[in-house]
C-alpha cells in the first residue's frame, strides 16, 4: 500500500474519516496544496475551505472544514478540524441561516482586528459552502 496515502480527518469529538487515497488537496493557510504519498513532512495551518480526496482521477470525498491544522508525514496525512461537514451532508437551509447570523455578527463586531478577520474568513467559508453545494 505504499503508493497510496492514508488520510485521517479528526474532530475534537471523534475520528471522522480514515481512508486511503491517491491524492488529497487541502486548503493551506498560504494556498491550496496537494499531498501525495512520500510528501515532505510538514505542519501547516488550514484556512476555511474544502478538502478534496482523490481516488484515481475523480473526487471520492469532499469535506468542508472551517480551519484547523494539518500534519503530513511520509505515508500519512492528518487533518485536525474543529468543524467539518461532508459535501453530501450540507443542509442548505440551515446554512443560509448561519450565513445570515455570521453576517450580522460581523456587522455588530467592534473593530477588533484579529477577531474580525477570523469572522470574515468564516463568513467566506460559509458562502463558499453554499455556492458549491448549489451544484449538488
Amino acid at each position, binding site marked *: 500500500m505504499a503508493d497510496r496515502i492514508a488520510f485521517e480527518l479528526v474532530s*475534537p*469529538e*471523534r475520528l471522522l474519516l480514515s481512508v486511503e487515497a491517491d491524492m488529497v488537496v487541502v486548503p493551506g*493557510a498560504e494556498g491550496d496544496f496537494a499531498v501525495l504519498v512520500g510528501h515532505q*513532512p510538514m*505542519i*501547516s*495551518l488550514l484556512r476555511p475551505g474544502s478538502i478534496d480526496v482523490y481516488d484515481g482521477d475523480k473526487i471520492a470525498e469532499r469535506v468542508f472544514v472551517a480551519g484547523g491544522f494539518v500534519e503530513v508525514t511520509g505515508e500519512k496525512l492528518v487533518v*485536525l478540524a474543529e468543524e467539518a461537514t461532508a459535501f453530501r451532508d450540507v443542509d442548505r437551509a440551515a446554512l443560509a441561516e448561519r450565513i445570515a447570523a455570521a453576517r450580522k455578527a460581523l456587522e455588530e463586531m467592534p473593530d477588533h482586528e484579529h477577531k474580525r478577520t477570523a469572522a470574515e474568513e468564516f463568513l467566506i467559508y460559509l458562502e463558499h459552502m453554499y455556492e458549491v453545494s448549489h451544484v449538488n
Partner: protein
Amino acid sequence: MPSLKTLRVRINSVKSTQKITKAMKMVAASKLRRAQEAAEAARPFSERMERMLAALAAALGTNDGAPRLLIGTGRSDVHLLVVATADRGLCGAFNSSICRAARRHAAELIAAGKTVKILCVGRKGRDILRRGLAGQILDTLPITHSKRVNYADAALVAERIAEWFAAGEFDVCTLFYNRFRSVIAQVVTTRQIIPAALPDAGPAPDLGGAIYEYEPEEDEILERLLPRNLAVQIYRALLENAASEQGARMTAMDNATRNAGDMINRLTLSYNRSRQAVITKELIEIISGAQAV
C-alpha cells in the same frame, strides 16, 4: 415500641427510596457507557494535537520569542485554579474529593504568599468552595448547555481562561478534575495547563531523518495551536469528569440500594415481632377472661 402502622409506613417509604436509587443506578450505568465512548472517541484528536505541539515546541525551543501560553509569564505570583466538578450531587465523594484537593492546594499557595483565584466549572464546586474561599472565586461556568459534554462548551471555558491570561489576571493555571480509572476508582488529578506542561511526545513518527516543514512560520502556528490545545485539554478533563461522575454515582447508588435492602429487612423483622406480640397479648387476654368466668 413503634406501632404497627408506623412500621408499615416506614417500610413502604424505604421501599420507594430503594426503587429510586435502583433506577438512578441503572441510569448512571447507561450514561457511563456513553460517557466512556465519548472519552474514547476524543482520544485521537488530543493525541495528534499533543504530538504536533511537541514537534513545534522542540523546533522553536524555549527562547524569549515563544508564545506566553507555552512558557508562561516568568512569574508565579497569581495562581488560577480551575475546578471542574459536576452540576449535580448524589454521586458519592466525587465532588468533595475534587474540592478537597483544590482547597488543600489553595491553602498551600496562600501559605506561600501567593494569590489564588478560582474558576469553578460545574455548580457543585462553587457550592462547596464557597465556604471559606468565597472571595477567591472569580466565576462559575456551567459544564454544558446541552445534555452531553461537547467541545463548544469546553472551548468557551478555554476562551475565558485565555482572555484572563492575556489580561494578566494570573501567571499559572492549574486544572482539577477526576480521572476515570474504573467504576469504583476515580483519581483526583491536578494538571498545570498554563504554562503548558509539555506532554511526553511519545514515539515520534518516523520521518526517515527528514524534518517538518512549517507553513506559515512555527510561531504563527503555535499561536493558533496553543489556545486550541487549552480547549482540548479542558474538553478531555470534562469528558473524564463526566465518566467519573457517572461511575461514582453508580457505586453510590448501588450502596444506597443495598443499605435500603438491609433496612427493609430489619424493619420487617421488628414489624413481624410486634405483630406476633400483639396476637399473643390478645390470646392471653381472651384465655384469662375465659378462665375467670
